[in-house]
Every structure is written in structure tokens, then in C-alpha cells.
């Protein structure tokens, strides 16, 4: 690493960053935790849902939070990691207009929806209405094993993680390890966007 870039200056750059997170389920809650631990200063998290017992198999919530709005529970959990991280919880089902309104001031956005149609909606809205803001999306993370098939495609300001194939369904549920891999890859790509390439080369 460049000797002039010390740990403190990296933290300072992340502290100034504002990251939008669309969805606070398996991808969004775990990605938010990784970004908060990394020191990202502001997270704008939107989700309409409440925590259910069935979410605890992969999402960053606890049994005593069942029934509460996810974004509120997540803000509480992130504050227990680092109370200086500013979390702006938005209890809403995002549509294109609201996403553009919420995320127009962000340095980048994480697409963390469960539903493929919602993913497409956000990618189209960002790509056409906020094309200058990077979007890190995920597709294909259900099941288990096949860790090496999780990959990253960088298409300009759209970054896509996942295997682009394994769809969640009855006999192929989303499970903690692969969801966690995808969420960590999204957070990692977010850091690469915010900090630039690690070795002065390709991201």
C-alpha cells in the first residue's frame, strides 16, 4: 500500500461516505453490518417489512426483535457495533420515484432486494435516472456450496455479484453462507468504489 495512505485517512474517507441500501433482508442487513464495521459514515436503509422468526436463518436480526420493523431493528444492531455510524431508517416499499429521491445524494447504492422484479425496477431506475451513481446489485445466491461460482461483473456503474443462476425456490432456499458471501462481496465492491483500487491497479 502507498505509504501516504494510512489507516486513519482510509477511515476518514469512509466516514464521509453515504451509502444507500435498498432492502434490509439477507443481503441488506449483512451488507450494512460489514459497511458499519468498515466505518462507512452514513447508511440510508429502506425496507417495508418486519422481522419474522423465519428471517433469523440468514438475516442480521435476533429473536427478541421479531415483529419489529427491520430498518429499526437494524439501526439498533448497527448502533451496538458503532454508535457513530449514522443510520437513516426508511420504512417504505421502494418504487422508482422514492428510490431516486432517497438515493440521489448517495455515493453509491446497494441493491439488496429478494424479488427479481424489484431488482430489475431498481437497476432500471438507477441506470436511467441516476446513471452517475454506482449500483452494486446481486443475482443468484440461493442454495449451498459452489462458493467459487460467486463472481463479480462490472458493467460501468452497475456492479453485479452472485452466480447469476441459482434462484431461490422451495428446494433451493437462500441460506446464511451463500447469502453472506454475496452480501460481503457487495460490501467489498462498495469499499472498492469508495476507496479506489487496493494496489493502484484494477478494482
Amino acid at each position: 500500500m502507498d505509504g501516504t495512505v494510512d489507516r486513519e485517512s482510509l477511515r476518514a474517507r469512509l466516514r464521509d461516505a453515504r451509502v444507500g441500501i435498498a432492502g434490509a433482508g439477507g443481503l441488506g442487513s449483512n451488507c450494512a453490518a460489514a459497511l458499519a464495521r468498515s466505518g462507512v459514515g452514513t447508511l440510508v436503509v429502506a425496507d417495508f417489512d418486519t422481522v419474522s422468526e423465519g428471517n433469523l436463518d440468514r438475516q442480521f436480526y435476533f429473536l427478541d426483535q421479531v415483529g419489529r420493523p427491520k430498518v429499526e431493528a437494524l439501526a439498533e444492531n448497527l448502533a451496538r457495533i458503532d454508535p457513530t455510524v449514522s443510520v437513516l431508517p426508511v420504512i417504505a416499499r421502494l418504487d422508482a420515484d422514492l428510490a431516486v429521491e432517497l438515493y440521489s445524494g448517495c455515493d453509491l447504492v446497494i441493491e439488496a432486494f429478494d424479488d427479481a422484479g424489484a431488482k430489475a425496477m431498481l437497476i432500471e431506475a438507477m441506470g436511467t435516472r441516476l446513471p452517475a451513481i454506482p449500483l452494486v446489485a446481486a443475482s443468484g445466491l440461493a442454495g449451498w456450496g459452489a462458493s467459487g461460482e460467486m463472481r463479480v461483473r462490472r458493467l460501468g456503474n452497475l456492479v453485479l455479484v452472485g452466480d447469476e443462476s441459482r434462484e431461490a425456490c422451495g428446494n433451493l432456499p437462500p441460506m446464511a453462507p451463500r447469502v453472506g458471501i454475496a452480501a460481503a462481496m457487495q460490501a467489498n465492491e462498495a469499499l472498492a468504489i469508495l476507496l479506489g483500487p487496493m494496489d493502484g491497479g484494477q478494482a
Partner: protein
Amino acid sequence: MTITLNGESAELAGREAAVRAVLASKGWSFPLIIVKVNGNLVRREDWDAFTVRDGDSMEAIHLVSGG
């Protein structure tokens, strides 16, 4: 004409082709596909009107549920 499709060279008939025709020529009929041409997102409602030409770069992303 030759375009770059998902990072690989692809030969297509004619001098230009609609985005929808390119997808069809590859047999890609998934319900949720995102298309970018030369880095710009092409909305689904524009797939018939928007054409690619020789030398263009087109990316198609298949979205599946899970998160």
C-alpha cells in the same frame, strides 16, 4: 456485423439489430433481463426501437430472486 456480447465476440446477420432480436437470437427469454449497450442501460420498453450496430458492446444480465 460483429458485436461484443457479455464480453465475447458475436456474429449477427444484417447491419443492425434490435436489442430484442439479439436476445432472441441467443435464445435468452428469461423474464427479467437487464440490457446495457456501450455502458448505457436500455429500458425494456425500448428493446424494439433500440438497435445495436457493428462494433457495439452489449451486456445482458439475468436477474433471479433471492436475497
